[in-house]
């Protein structure tokens, strides 16, 4: 049998710059997810800068999930400063995050990945797809709106500081969103069955998946790190238990969970979250998932789009709940006493767990930091899935495989700008 | 006989209630460490709040005495409301050989009552009326907001740290250009009518007798205010001193400090400069070449680089020239243009200049250096 080569120099409809290279040879199959996004050295230039810069700058790692960076950073900093953050501020932060989940997921589901299932090159190419593009833009607008009310703008918001916010949003402004949010929630519930009905190819998810878990709520900013293989550790120990691996053939740093001296890749993101925290969803959403015929746990990587649709609905319902109960905290931010120290924090970015670790000096300036974005945790898993898929379908023509592989990668919603650790081939 | 009477401080709310029947009340409110002007209710009045102002700085101090109006003017004035930061001039439509220019929709809101306009601002308002209503054609946007508006003036009893209206001859006492004049006394306000509209308002209040005692109390208070001024300007030498020194080296010195941020022009109650521009959003453009949109007028400033730009260059490129133009416009040109001073001595440009550039001190430097 002659070998087959599959190559995409520059993957479209994903955030950032990456390509795909795979070979099917008589005796073996190779698959590489190549990231060629240029490095930006955030961890280096943050050194010596104030902790507020950590909050403002790390947002610039990714335009799609800036809130995630701000949340991981601010929690780690607050842990170092031992700030007690009030419950109302915590709720406001969930609302902020809900906005980002909606915005990020809607972009991915409707504008980037959705067209794959309709054989379209873009969300605007086919007239028949336009209603979905419009729905996505509508959801996105509402998510953006929440982020803007709390943070000033949807991309790189400016309101987050240790202890809370620079200024609180007005209750009136939030209430004004309710009508549209409720309407959107209805539509987002219906969208779950739309997503469940898309034509998926079988791409089994048979590995470890990891997410936060916090009893009593669907995880965002707090919790322990758990997995389907029984992992249940604190944030700090999770970071201690994973190792980065600058894989020779690949461009990104791979992160692996260390067990018995062996590294294993794992999956973070909406699929992992849903599978590990389904019980924490509101009944109405659970019912909608069931009536759409979706089996939990979801065992097909391609069905990540369903998980995102479920989370869009969840984020809308969470936003509605928080706004209904919003009384406005007594103070915009709890007083924060600057202290030296080191802390790790993890929050659930739209694409999965985002790890920040900071060491601050007496003045509250960054001495050292480490940022592990979800996409760099997932790259190992992406390659492994591609490999499995190619092995199982090696008979198919290269052109078809190329399309399928691109679609698999897109299904992960990789955020390549996020993976700050990128090296040349 | 003009109506005159006293209103107990505890009944100040009555005045606002009467004004509020027919007008939106635009008045002072403490916010973010400054007294701003907004549509307010009685409770918003920062009663007793005092302020410290210095070149480039301002701080509010909590109130304690029985004085209601102990603060001096903040960054805002009537300007924000009568000459809004952005206003639509007209809408346009162009489609092939057809063009339409549609008037901006009439402002449907209730007219405004400016509550506690300071004497300096009364002079500025008089100038605005000349600029926007006094030409061969009245400015429609201004006219529609100004018509039906009501001016309740407040005599100043404490000069702000940067105020110099006394030397400008514009304060601290209101002389004309108001519908009602207020003076804060020991436990009441002396209210005096300034127009028939003002009288109508006053008639609806139950006022106490204002006799010789009240009148002399007012005089005393205003006189003691006059004695307390910290700042003055050499008004008697204006505008000559400006015209004589357009080439003075001191302008270079100012240019080193000047941020050309434009704050002075934006807070100045007499600065009126604007730029209008056609906005046609993507939604207003059709593939066939048809366009629709609106022309907006926005506050601008002679400190903007683009302000004096033409296709072949820029008439005022240097920072020095732009500062000089501003100061000369305030202290000399406006007088020539409209017969009134372009500076009313409110001190806003001194307080709200982040660099603390002080128009009175710079004029002194031009005189002496």
């Amino acid at each position, binding site marked *: 049998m002659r070998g087959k080569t599959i190559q995409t120099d520059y993957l479209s409809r994903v955030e950032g710059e990456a390509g795909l290279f795979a070979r099917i040879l008589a005796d073996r199959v190779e698959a590489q997810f190549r990231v060629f996004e240029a490095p930006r050295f955030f961890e280096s230039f943050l050194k010596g800068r104030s902790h507020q810069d950590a909050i403002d700058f790390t947002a610039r790692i990714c335009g799609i999930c800036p809130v995630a960076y701000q949340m991981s950073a601010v929690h780690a900093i607050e842990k170092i400063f031992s700030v007690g953050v009030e419950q109302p501020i915590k709720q406001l932060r969930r609302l902020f995050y809900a906005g980002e989940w909606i915005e990020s997921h809607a972009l991915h589901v409707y504008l980037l990945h959705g067209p794959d299932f309709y054989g379209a090159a873009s969300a605007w190419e086919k007239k028949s797809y336009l209603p979905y593009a419009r729905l996505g833009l509508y959801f996105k607008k509402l998510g953006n709106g929440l982020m803007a009310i709390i943070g000033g703008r949807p991309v790189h918001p400016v309101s987050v500081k240790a202890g809370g916010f620079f200024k609180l949003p007005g209750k009136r402004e939030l209430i004004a969103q309710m009508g549209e949010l409720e309407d959107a929630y209805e539509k987002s519930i219906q969208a779950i069955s739309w997503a469940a009905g898309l034509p998926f190819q079988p791409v089994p998810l048979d590995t470890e998946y990891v997410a936060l878990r916090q009893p009593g709520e669907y995880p965002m900013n707090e919790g322990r790190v758990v997995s389907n293989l029984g992992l249940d550790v604190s944030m700090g120990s999770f970071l201690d238990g994973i190792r980065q691996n600058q894989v020779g053939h690949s461009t990104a740093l791979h992160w692996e969970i260390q067990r018995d001296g062996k590294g294993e890749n794992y999956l973070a993101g909406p699929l992992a979250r849903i599978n590990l925290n389904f019980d924490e969803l509101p009944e109405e959403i659970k019912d909608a998932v069931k009536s759409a015929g979706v089996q939990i746990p979801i065992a097909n990587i391609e069905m990540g789009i369903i998980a995102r649709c479920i989370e869009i609905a969840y984020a809308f319902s969470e936003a509605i709940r928080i706004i209904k109960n919003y009384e406005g905290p007594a103070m915009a931010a709890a007083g924060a006493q600057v202290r030296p120290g080191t802390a790790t924090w993890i929050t659930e970015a739209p694409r999965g767990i985002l790890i920040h670790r900071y060491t601050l000096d007496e003045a509250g300036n960054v001495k050292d930091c480490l940022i592990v974005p979800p996409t760099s945790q997932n790259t190992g898993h992406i390659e492994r899935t591609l490999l499995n898929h190619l092995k199982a379908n090696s008979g198919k023509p290269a052109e078809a495989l190329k399309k399928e592989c691109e679609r698999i990668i897109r299904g992960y919603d990789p955020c390549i700008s996020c993976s700050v650790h990128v090296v040349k081939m | 006989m003009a109506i005159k009477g006293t209103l107990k401080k505890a009944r100040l709310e009555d005045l606002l209630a009467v004004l509020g029947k027919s007008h939106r009340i635009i008045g002072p409110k403490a916010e973010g460490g400054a007294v701003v002007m907004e549509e307010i209710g009685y409770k918003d009045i920062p009663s007793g709040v005092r302020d410290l102002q210095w070149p480039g700085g301002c701080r509010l101090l909590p109130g304690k005495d029985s004085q209601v109006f102990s603060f001096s003017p903040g960054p805002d004035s009537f300007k924000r409301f009568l000459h809004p930061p952005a206003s639509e001039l007209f809408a346009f439509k162009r489609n092939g050989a*057809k*063009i339409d220019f549609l008037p901006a929709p009439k402002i449907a809101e209730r007219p405004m009552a400016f509550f506690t306009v300071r004497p300096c601002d009364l002079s500025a308002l008089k100038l605005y009326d000349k600029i926007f209503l006094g*030409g061969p054609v009245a400015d429609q946007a201004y006219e529609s907001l100004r018509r039906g508006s009501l001016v309740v003036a407040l005599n100043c009893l404490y000069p702000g740290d940067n105020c110099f209206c006394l030397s400008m001859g514009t304060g601290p006492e209101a002389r004309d250009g108001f519908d009602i004049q207020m003076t804060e006394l020991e436990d009441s306000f002396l209210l005096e009518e300034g127009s028939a509209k003002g009288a109508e308002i006053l008639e609806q209040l139950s006022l106490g007798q204002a006799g010789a005692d009240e009148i002399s109390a007012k005089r005393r208070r205003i006189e003691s205010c006059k004695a307390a001024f910290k700042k003055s300007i050499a008004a008697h030498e204006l505008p000559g001193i400006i015209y004589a020194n357009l080439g003075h080296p001191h302008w270079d010195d100012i240019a080193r400090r000047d941020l050309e941020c434009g704050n002075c022009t934006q807070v100045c109650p007499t600065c009126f400069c604007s*730029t209008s521009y056609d906005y046609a959003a993507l939604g207003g453009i059709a593939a066939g070449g048809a366009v629709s949109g609106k022309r907006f007028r926005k506050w*601008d400033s002679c400190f903007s680089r683009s302000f*004096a730009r*033409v296709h072949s260059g820029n008439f005022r490129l240097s920072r020095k*020239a732009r500062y000089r*133009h501003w100061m000369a416009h305030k202290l000399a040109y406006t007088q020539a243009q409209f017969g009134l001073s372009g500076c009313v001595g409110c001190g806003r440009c001194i307080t709200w200049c982040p660099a603390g550039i002080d128009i009175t001190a710079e004029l002194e430097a031009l005189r002496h250096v």
Partner: protein
Amino acid sequence: MYDRARPFAARVRWAKKETRDTSTFALWIEDEAIRRQYTFSPGQFNMLSVPGIGEAAISISSGPEDGPLLHTIRVAGDVTSAISGICASNIVGMRGPFGRGWPMQEVEGKSLIVIAGGLGMAPLRPVVRRLLKSGMGHGTDERPVLIYGARSPRDILFRHEFQTFGRLFDVHITVDKADPHEHWKGRTGLIPPILEEISLHGPGTIAFLCGPEVMMRCMINELLLRGLPAEQIFLSLERNMNCAMGTCGHCMFGPKFVCKDGPVFRYSEVRQFMAVQEI
């Protein structure tokens, strides 16, 4: 009076290319009521607009007694390019007329010297046309003088009209530079030397100038030296123009608003500011 703040539609009756970058447009005010009220004097200008692009101040280059309302426009930036792309029977927006024009009544009894540089001929054309119409009847035996300087022979505006102008005026044309292939037989060089050749009657002369400011400055000095009183020198100034009604502040020249106090100024009114850089 019709609204001066909101444009009205003016139809391009015809457009004629004058030079490589300049064309003359004949405009016809669509609204009959406005058309009847519309009157102007030489030296005044209109604000012409292309909706969505913007507005530009353009002098009226025809005389009040001429038929069509002419505008001679050089492509400089956005608006002027957009207008130049508009062809006959299409429409532009117009506001106006604005400003104070040339003091035609003061010409009476004096000998007139008109000095134009480049596009500066446009607002002076109505002056020439007016005098042509009224013939020699401006109360003096002197032939009025017209000095015109252009960049090059192909930049001469209204070039076919100068012969007509010459019926009344003593016409002097010069170009900065001429390429040999243009076969230019006229003068080359700057304007000032021309002035030296002309005999002036000092106080009995009145001068109208329009052109680049450097040129005007230089010519004014010369005229003053030759005994013209500052009160009898008039110049048309150019500044950034936005509202044209003295409320936007853009066009200020010292205390003067070019839009309403000008664009034509008596030199004695502005002399003090002409000397100041970046005024």
